[in-house]
């Protein structure tokens, strides 16, 4: 019996490619790789979008491969490195993948139903374009905001943060609300340097032309940001990395502590807001605190599926992509599963949670310049940032004095310059 089952399974597995080939005669099959639970939606959402699409396009079949968050990047890199066939549609997770993506401009021009103005401008600007090409279409969007626990604030008798609060306010409120005896911290620390708060100090890690680090990473503005961070760490109002580090993949980790009522303020994103709503946490939302800079910055992103440059069916792949990232697909994603936030402003009025005051705050941040404006156009920022960790870590570990920061930054400039030059020679800027 067991042998028979094995044989059957064996033949089924062997037969699948043959079956698919047969299908190919009638329909075009588009392979799609995606992730579950991302701003792209969960499995259910994906299936609904695909079902709706296939209903409207009977000659196209979608072959979906759903991968865990941690796996898709590895798998794509392996496939790219192997140099062969890539999935027709995939999320453009990494700026470095842009060279292998299809330029969508001609397809968009020929498409009467989709145009650039449909989309929220910041995301088109920072995620969809690469140089002169359009490499992807934005779908679900997200941004960092600060959630605060009203109950914790009430208990400590502290006023809620307001939308125009500053980084100093952040520290003050965090200290006021901390209650160590009951295991409550006031706020959390930024996950790493050069995110929104650093930009709010006008700090930039290296020059716009990706050549010079000296005068940027150790600029007075940068120093001010690092010193603020030092003050935050030494206020003892924040949990250490150990206490937060419960495997936040991109570092949006404090959510568990926030939900447990042990964090007065947490820098989270809109998806966590939905979770807080579900768990019944009494919370409010403000943007990340302002610094001395003229413009306030936001750390926002969007999921951006793209088409492989070597796709054999670019037209059909585009049909699916434009559906998925267009009005119809995003409407489905918005109203099912994880209630993703669409990148098409026209759809926002239909979002299930649009009336919540927190969402209004979320929307205001989207009008600001984005952190991504620098990061997206400077491919080496990630490689560079990895080397820049040391000062940040030292501060976090309380292993450096406030007046030693400048010297440490100067030292890091040298290391960073080498890493930057090396990266630029490989990837361009």
């Amino acid at each position, binding site marked *: 019996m067991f042998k028979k089952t094995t044989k059957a399974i064996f033949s089924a597995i062997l037969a699948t490619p043959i079956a698919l080939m047969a299908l190919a005669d009638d329909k075009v099959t588009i392979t799609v790789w995606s992730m579950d639970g991302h701003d792209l939606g969960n499995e259910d959402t994906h299936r609904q979008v695909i079902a709706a699409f296939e209903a409207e396009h009977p000659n196209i079949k979608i072959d979906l491969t759903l991968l865990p968050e941690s796996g898709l990047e590895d798998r794509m890199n392996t496939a*790219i490195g192997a140099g062969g066939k890539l999935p027709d549609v995939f999320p453009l997770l990494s700026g470095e993948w842009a*060279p292998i993506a299809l330029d969508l401009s001609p397809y968009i021009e020929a498409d009467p139903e989709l145009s650039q103005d449909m989309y929220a401008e910041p995301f088109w600007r920072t995620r969809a374009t690469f140089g002169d090409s359009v490499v992807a279409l934005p779908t679900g969007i997200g941004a960092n905001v600060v959630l605060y626990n009203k109950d914790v604030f009430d208990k400590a008798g502290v006023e809620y943060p307001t939308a125009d609060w500053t980084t100093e306010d952040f520290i003050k409120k965090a200290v006021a609300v901390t209650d160590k005896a009951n295991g409550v911290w006031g706020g959390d620390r930024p996950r790493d340097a050069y995110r929104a708060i650093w930009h709010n100090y006008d700090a930039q890690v290296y020059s716009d032309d990706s050549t010079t680090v000296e005068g940027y990473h150790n600029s007075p503005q940068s120093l001010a940001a690092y010193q603020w961070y030092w003050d935050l760490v030494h206020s003892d109002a924040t949990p250490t990395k150990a206490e937060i*580090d419960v495997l936040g993949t991109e570092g949006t980790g404090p959510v568990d502590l926030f939900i447990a009522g042990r964090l007065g303020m947490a820098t989270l994103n809109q998806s966590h807001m939905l979770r807080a709503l579900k768990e019944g946490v009494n919370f409010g939302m403000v943007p990340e605190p302002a610094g001395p800079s003229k413009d306030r910055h936001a750390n926002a992103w969007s999921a951006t599926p793209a088409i492989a440059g070597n796709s054999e069916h670019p037209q059909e792949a585009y049909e699916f992509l434009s559906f998925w990232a267009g009005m119809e697909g995003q409407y489905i994603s918005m109203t099912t599963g994880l209630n993703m936030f669409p990148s098409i402003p026209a759809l926002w009025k239909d979002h299930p949670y649009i009336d919540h005051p927190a969402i209004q705050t979320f929307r205001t941040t989207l009008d600001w310049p984005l952190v991504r404006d620098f990061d997206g156009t400077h491919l080496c920022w*990630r490689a560079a940032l*990895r*080397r820049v960790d040391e000062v940040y*870590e030292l501060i976090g570990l309380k292993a450096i004095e406030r007046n030693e920061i400048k010297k440490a930054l100067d030292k890091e400039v040298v290391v960073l310059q080498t890493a930057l030059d090396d*990266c630029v020679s490989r*990837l361009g800027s």
Partner: protein
Amino acid sequence: MKFMGKKSKRERTQAIEGYVALSPWMFGFLFFYAIPILASLYLSFTQWTLVGSVKWIGFENYIRMFTRDPVFIDAATATGFFVLYSLPFKLVLGLMLALLLNMKLPGMNYFRTIFFLPAVISGVAVSLMWIWFLQPDTGVVNTLLRYVGISGPGWFWDINWALPSVAMMSIWKVGGAAIIYLAGLQNIPAHLYEAAAIDGASKWQQFWRITLPLLTPVLLFQLIIEMIDAFKIFTEAFVITQGGPLNRTYFFLYYFYEEAFRNFNMGYASALAIFLLIVIMSATALVKWWSNRWVYYEN
């Protein structure tokens, strides 16, 4: 007739049959190992961003690795220390555990299962479990220490404790090694012990003169296998520490992974991998050579 230069028919048949028997392995070796290693060797002399084309740059990668890369030193140090910390403990504790488990007491079966369990589980879940277990604030270990009035260290998040914490995770799996030693212990003929007992040897003397020497082949096997595994440590850095704090757990394979798949620096990553391979091979050869002094083969 052998010395006549031509092999006898028997020997030729033997050789052919030997090759035939080995053929599955040779085929597998060629495709699944030889080709990837040769590819890595080739790539280590190039610069390649995965999305771009492969560019030959000669020894550049190696020169950079040995002269201009502080992270390389961090990675080598972290890996080296990990091997040094974990290996002796694993060998000694494994042996001690095996000696305990070897006792003919009822219920040992259950103990054996319990101690083997950690070796059996692996993967991300176990690493996550350890994150919690060792969390300074809410973790089990520090809570227990708090009960007895000790303020526990920062474990994975403390500069000085991160590497020992990872070593501890590895030592937790010592039950796997214990099983191998157990097998070796069963193999020592009982009459040797009896003869020694009659001659008045104490338990300790019996251990030193009979058990240990006869166990040395097993010890060597374990030493080599575990040393190779220790050099290849990766998951803990990947899941738990991300190489920190301050690169204290930036293990070599994790460095490889980051260079290859995060920094799109495949050429350099390949150079790193080749270097690691050479180190492991040299270490193994050294151990084997050293073993001639202390391994006792009953021939």
